[in-house]
């Protein structure tokens, strides 16, 4: 659905990625990593300095008009709606622009306005809507022409929990019908809930594309296990633990999940003592971003230091 071959533009540096149809991809990375640039390249708003891009089999910057028919987009800095017009007036205009059949339009408008919760706002001018209300309408506007590809930049910013859930449901449903979605978000929980694949950008470099589990294993493999035991403390010398602290009958273990599993640790412990309580903390997706940021800072500090020398 989207192919980037060694694409460079602004901060993006030789990015290659292939997103198949039907995937919901979360584009993550710290602020300024190049996420919005990636989306703008994919829809043809920007042209690559180097490399090739194919979106839905088309060259986005050259075949814009054709591409737009099957594309739904939402960017923070691009207004979707005419502020002066009512919500329903805006959708009427979209019907005309995308040449949507009247019956299908009526059916879809009814469904989207109902599910995203803007059915009562239909006759209100867009300029009178709150940020959250406007965002709900904008999501509906991005979906009304049943696009095959959705590019969403921070789509749930300003949405309340109900609207977020409705949005997640819609995306999941449309995915089953073949919709491909690429979305950026700083809400890692949202990415976890919604996305089948994750693309990680760090300072313009495409570091990884895969499932959430794979990405966490690769970038933050360190799991933590806290144990409270009854009786003698176990001997864990043979395990490849990274960190091991003891406080009375409580143990805190950090280990690389690529080298040793929680099951292996527990098995060894129960052979020697009784476990009263156990808590395992697996890294969150947000930890990946934090870790990358920390690494970047460390790299920058090291460069500064070398330059001074």
């Amino acid at each position, binding site marked *: 659905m989207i192919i980037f071959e060694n694409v460079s533009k602004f901060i993006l540096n030789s990015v290659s990625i292939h997103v198949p149809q039907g995937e919901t991809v979360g584009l993550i990375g710290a602020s300024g990593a190049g996420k919005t640039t990636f989306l703008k390249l994919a829809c043809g708003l920007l042209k690559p300095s180097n490399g090739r891009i194919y979106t839905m089999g088309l060259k986005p910057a050259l075949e814009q008009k054709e591409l737009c028919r099957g594309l739904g987009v939402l960017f923070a800095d691009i207004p979707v709606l005419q502020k002066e017009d009512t919500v329903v007036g805006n959708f009427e*205009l979209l019907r005309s622009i995308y040449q949507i059949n009247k019956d299908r339009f009526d059916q879809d408008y009814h469904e989207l306005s109902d599910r995203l919760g803007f059915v009562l706002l239909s006759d209100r001018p867009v300029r009178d809507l709150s940020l959250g209300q406007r965002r709900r309408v904008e999501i509906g506007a991005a979906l009304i022409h049943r696009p095959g590809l959705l590019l969403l930049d921070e789509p749930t910013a300003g949405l309340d929990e109900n609207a977020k859930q409705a949005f997640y449901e819609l995306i999941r449903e449309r995915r089953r019908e073949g919709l491909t979605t690429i979305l950026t978000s700083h809400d890692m929980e949202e990415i976890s809930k919604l996305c089948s694949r994750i693309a990680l950008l760090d300072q313009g470099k495409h570091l990884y594309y895969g499932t959430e589990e794979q990405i966490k294993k690769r970038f933050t493999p360190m799991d933590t296990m806290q144990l409270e035991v009854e009786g003698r403390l176990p001997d864990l010398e043979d395990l490849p633990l990274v960190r091991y602290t003891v406080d009375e009958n409580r143990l805190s273990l950090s280990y690389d999940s690529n080298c040793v599993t929680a099951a292996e640790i527990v098995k060894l412990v129960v052979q020697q003592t009784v476990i009263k309580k156990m808590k395992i903390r697996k890294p969150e997706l947000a930890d990946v971003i934090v870790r990358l940021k920390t690494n970047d800072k460390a790299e920058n500090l090291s460069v500064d230091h070398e330059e001074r020398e």
Partner: protein
Amino acid sequence: MKSDTLHMMLVYTKTIMKAWFQYRSNALLSSLTVFLREATGIVVIYFTLLKFGTLGGWNIYEMLFLFSLLFLTYGIMIIFFTGLRDFGKTVRDGGFDRFILRPRGLLFQLIFTNADWFAAVGHGGLGIALFLISAGRVGIQWNAVNILYYLFTVMGGVLIQGAIFLLLAALNIYLLETNSLKELFYWNMRKFAGYPISIFHKAIQVCMIYVVPFAFVNYFPAQYLLRKPDMAQYPQLYLYITPIVGIVMYLAAYGFWKYSLKFYKSSGN
């Protein structure tokens, strides 16, 4: 014209009318403000000419007729070309990116999504008022030929000014900001266009005929209908070619616009 295009034009127009005339008293006052602002300049000239009689051989009513063409063509032009006049703002607001992301012609969307109706009513209303005051007092025979000439020449004047806005919008793609250019090449030149160009220095005349050809918007058309002696210093052909100048300028500006779009860079990066 395809029915969906027509439908889109109707929807856009409905939206614009709703937006501009939502508050009727405000709309009336805004239009009146534009009308009075522009009329003030005319009143000053009127009283000046009452004292001096003529300006370069043009009497007060001939001058008003000259002005009427300028205001009327602007009033019509701005209904279609507000989007181009305000193109810089549209780009900065991200509105142009929205147009790019829709499967419709960019110029079509720019033209039909905005219309400054206050300016249209203010300028157009003043143009009509000046025409009504002057047309019967300048000795024009309003026969079929002259009426047709007048209609075509107004269309040409609209296209000439539209072409200037289109050209400036295209330049905006390279320069990002063209307000100073617009001030210099449109608004300042337009101030000269209220007077017979023959009263100005040769350099300004050349500018008004060949650089920013406002002379074809009102001076030469008025000359065709009035036949003033100062026309002797210009080729007679100029009396007839306003619609052609308009079409050629517009096509040239459109070509430049299409070419310039290749260099457009999205905002926000």
